[in-house]
């Protein structure tokens, strides 16, 4: 966090929530980023991600009971793919945080949080469908939008569309 910066009230709430998580997990998390639109932190030790998620949901002072979104991102420059989870505490503390989790670009996997927030079930499938990272422990890990026998992961920045699909020409 930059010193001397005046934070808005909602970012202050997020920072306080981060402090509680940081107290428990310490070095497994990155520093807090006080981005005004989306305050976030990154999970460094990704094997701890489900544990962190459960802690965020169940801790009496956090109660992150609502996953608003889980999006995939291609960090091509870092040779990584990842997810950004927007998590909120609806009707309890009204604070929100975004969490980033990254894994290697080819053959990488991220532990699933589908049993923590059920929203993550389909969203993780979508991230897998578009970016190709696997979610270990997911109850139903298969494509959700593209056909099951589609080749490649369309939202990767170096994606090239296949020539034909079942004998039908795909490119223009």
């Amino acid at each position, binding site marked *: 966090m930059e010193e001397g910066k005046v934070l808005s009230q909602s970012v202050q709430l997020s920072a306080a929530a981060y402090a509680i998580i940081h107290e428990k997990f310490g070095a497994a998390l990155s520093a807090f980023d006080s981005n005004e639109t989306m305050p976030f932190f990154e999970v460094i030790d990704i094997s701890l991600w489900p544990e962190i998620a459960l802690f965020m949901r169940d801790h009496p002072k956090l109660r992150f009971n609502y996953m608003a979104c889980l999006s995939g991102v291609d960090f091509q420059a870092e040779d990584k793919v990842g997810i950004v989870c927007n998590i909120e505490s609806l009707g309890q503390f009204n604070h929100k945080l975004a969490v980033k989790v990254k894994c290697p670009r080819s053959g990488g996997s991220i532990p699933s949080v589908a049993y923590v927030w059920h929203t993550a079930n389909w969203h993780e499938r979508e991230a897998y469908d578009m970016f190709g990272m696997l979610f270990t422990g997911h109850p139903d890990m298969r494509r959700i939008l593209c056909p099951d026998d589609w080749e490649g992961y369309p939202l990767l920045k170096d994606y090239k569309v296949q020539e034909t699909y*079942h004998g039908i020409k795909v490119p223009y």
Partner: protein
Amino acid sequence: MGLLDAAITKHNVLVTSVDNVLNWARLSSLWPMGFGLACCAIEMMATNASNYDLERFGIFPRSSPRQSDLMIVAGTVTMKMAERVIRLYEQMPEPRYVLSMGSCSNCGGPYWEHGYHVLKGVDRIIPVDVYVPGCPPRPESLIGGLMKVQELIRMEQIGVSRADALKKLAEKSVDPQFVIELERKAASA
């Protein structure tokens, strides 16, 4: 005055050709298959509804391909849907007609370059008789396209192939440039 108003009394005879009667019957009850794929479908439904009232042409959507004469491909055809569109087309009894409605089903529309999941023109998988341009086309355009299908049916004869009927239709068509110029002149005057 029409024939019915002219008080035709008994013992009258009307003479016409079988082709004419068949064509008149078929083009007056074009039943499209009721399915829509994207925003064009909203426009198609609006055309079916009371403001534009397609039923005055005898056009009435059917819920089964087995009862349909016409397939209006209204919207974006994805690769996943493409195979289903082929299946539906094959389930329609002949003679059948296909109207491609809107840019997406004509050529891929806004998805032509980066839409990995979109079929770039439904004519890659099934033969299309009439293309209606627009994104989405207004109900007037769709009605124009349906009139074109009716004209095509009017060109058909027993023993004449669809390709020849389409050729005859093309010969009879008016060059739109002439009409556009005429309208422009009228507007400036």
